[in-house]
């Protein structure tokens, strides 16, 4: 898959870098080399460009540039918004700030808990023995893994 397709908050490993020759050297020099681990930090308003963390530096790339980097997912984590109905997942991490984290915690959603998706649109989940309605925006910030 392309780096541009990796979800915010996930980590991927670079397979190949295919920039035109005049930019290739700079991109490789910045640390986007095959085998390097890249974390998708955040996206700008309107979804483009995005900030990536590679070899300890925060670098911005537009979608058109991130398209040129071929990657494979490193973790099996993905946002809850992409989860399937009826399946159970384990909560791995949050993408939001401290306000977001305290809000979801008060709903019983915490790292390590098991979450089951009852329905999507609107999204209903079962977590800590309770049935909770959550918004899609929230679901995008909760990273889960299949059990």
């Amino acid at each position: 898959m392309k780096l541009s397709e990796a979800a915010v908050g996930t980590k991927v490993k670079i397979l190949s870098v295919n920039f035109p020759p005049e930019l290739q050297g700079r991109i490789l020099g910045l640390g986007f080399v095959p085998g390097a681990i890249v974390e998708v930090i955040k996206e700008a308003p309107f979804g483009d460009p995005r900030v990536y963390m590679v070899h300890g530096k925060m670098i911005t790339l537009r979608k058109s540039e991130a398209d040129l980097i071929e990657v494979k997912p490193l973790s099996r984590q993905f946002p809850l918004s992409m989860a399937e109905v009826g399946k159970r997942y384990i909560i791995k991490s949050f993408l939001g700030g401290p306000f977001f984290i305290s809000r979801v915690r008060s709903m019983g959603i915490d790292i390590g808990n098991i979450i089951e998706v009852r329905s999507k649109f609107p999204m209903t989940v079962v977590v800590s023995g309770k049935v909770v309605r959550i918004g899609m925006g929230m679901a995008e910030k909760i990273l889960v893994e299949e059990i």
Partner: protein
Amino acid sequence: MSIVAFVGNPNVGKSSLFNAITGARQYVANWPGVTVSRKEGIRRWRGREIKFVDLPGIYSLGAISIDEKITRDYLLKESPDVVVVVVDALNMQQGLYLLIEVLEMRENVMLVVNAIDEAKKRGMNINKYELEKHFGVHVVFTSAVTGEGIEELLDKILHIITTKEVHSFVELTYQKEIEEKVKELEKKIENIEDLKPYKPRWLALKALEGDPEVLNLLKKFGISIPDEESKKYKEMIAQRRYQYIDSVLKEAITSFGQKLTISEALDHVITHKFLGIPIFLAMMYLVFTFTFNVMSPLSDLIDIGISNLGEWLRNVMGSGWVTSLVVDGVINGVGAVLVFVPNIFGMFLALGFMEEVGYLPRAAFVIDKLMYKLKLSGRSFMSLILGFGCNVPAVMSTRGIADPRERLITILVSPFITCSARLPIYILLAGIFFKGHEAAVIFALYISSIILTAVSATLLNKILFKGQPVPLVMELPRYRLPGFKNLWLYVWERGKHFLEKAGTIILVSAIIIWFLGNYPAPADKSFAADLGKFFEPIFRPLGYDWRMVTALIFGTAAKEVVVSTFQMMYGDPASVLPNLITPPVALSFMFFVMAYIPCLATIAVIKTEAGGWKWATFSVLYSLSVAYTISLLISVIGRAIL
């Protein structure tokens, strides 16, 4: 004299270190890529004079961007006695990559790990001896802020100059496939006399990396590497370098310390998906408020001072042509511009603060999507925004734009942004012809000026560069507390340019205009009148009076001059003008003022910044034709309707 060159990534504190050593006053920005061309300085140390050269910040030594080329050519041709590679203690990887590249090219290299104070504060522990052992270079820890390690660095530099001892020899071995190829190429290269000045291994590696300059050089001797092979090798070589760096750092860094929580928390809000743009707008609004409202009492003060000086001189010198030249010409002419000095300094202070803290790259990130549509990047938006104050600093600030295409486009379109000097003309004419609707008319002019800028950017990009978008590969530096000295340097370096202009171009044009307006006889019979009447036929389709034409011509010196020329020619424009022209013609005139020729100061900066008269001439002709077309349309349509 021995020469020492500083090399490193952008924003690692190379320039601060350079300033700390040489005592030079080079502004250091928290914005990657401040050193556009190289800076030099001299320091005496233990009885020896050493010349220091600060080279542009780069990420690799490929000779593709201007910065990379400057640095590489310097290292190859000027052959400094010591090359100091500077890396950021908090994030050494990319810097060490550059170190490996430099080491492959030359021998007398050493490493400086800068910002060591910040690393210590975070509880990070770096082992110097591991770095020395694995890279085969002397290592010094420094802090340009606290001054720590500077003496040690100077001693180490002197040591390398006098003894040529560079620690030890470590050569990074690549994958088997690469090493075999390198051996093969090295054998061929060693036999060629012309290639003796270069290290064979360096040439071989660069050839495998597909470096266009090296390949061109080798082609003369029948050595070539197919493109698809070099693409593969280039990736492999870069990959191996980073593998090595990672393995060294695993041993060298024993404690990473705590993460940078303040930076992260700030970033969460400032570059937020929804809050990002409102925060950006609020910041820009603050810059404007600071520039115009906070600074205006100072402007008023200068204004009062200038008119008092004029009055006093008139009393002392009596009446006569010399008095008129000095007071009406020089003092009022130059004074009209000096009034804006506090605004200019205020704007640079506000922007300098934002740049210093590290906000500018983030603002560019936040609004990049919009600029992408114009084939520009968020960075050029920052320059254009400045244009609302004055086009001169707007053009000057494009120095921070790394991409030369983007920089040129930004320079050429920025004069269309309505600067504060045009506002008096709008206010005067809107007040006479559009009473009750002044705000709407002026707002329309501002919006039109933005649209014109956007359209021009798209158009010029299509014509000049066939619409290639500018890539946005930008580093977001960590936040930094602004240093007072640095901030003052930022303001002064930029502001003094404006003062110099006031003392030269504006002064000269003020004198010229005074002569033209008063000889052979004042007003109607002056050269100024002849000038206006001469060009009037060209403006007849637009419906302009000859005095308006004269004002336009004088207005090229500085757009404020249009208003003062009106005053001089009409006496009381509010009662005279309505009998001469209709509201559509007045509107047409306002649009003409908005778009036509950038003022002399702006033309001058366009010339220096864009490199030559070619672009300055282009800018003048382009804006003149745009202004004429738009104004003609307004006049003709207006006349047809009424």
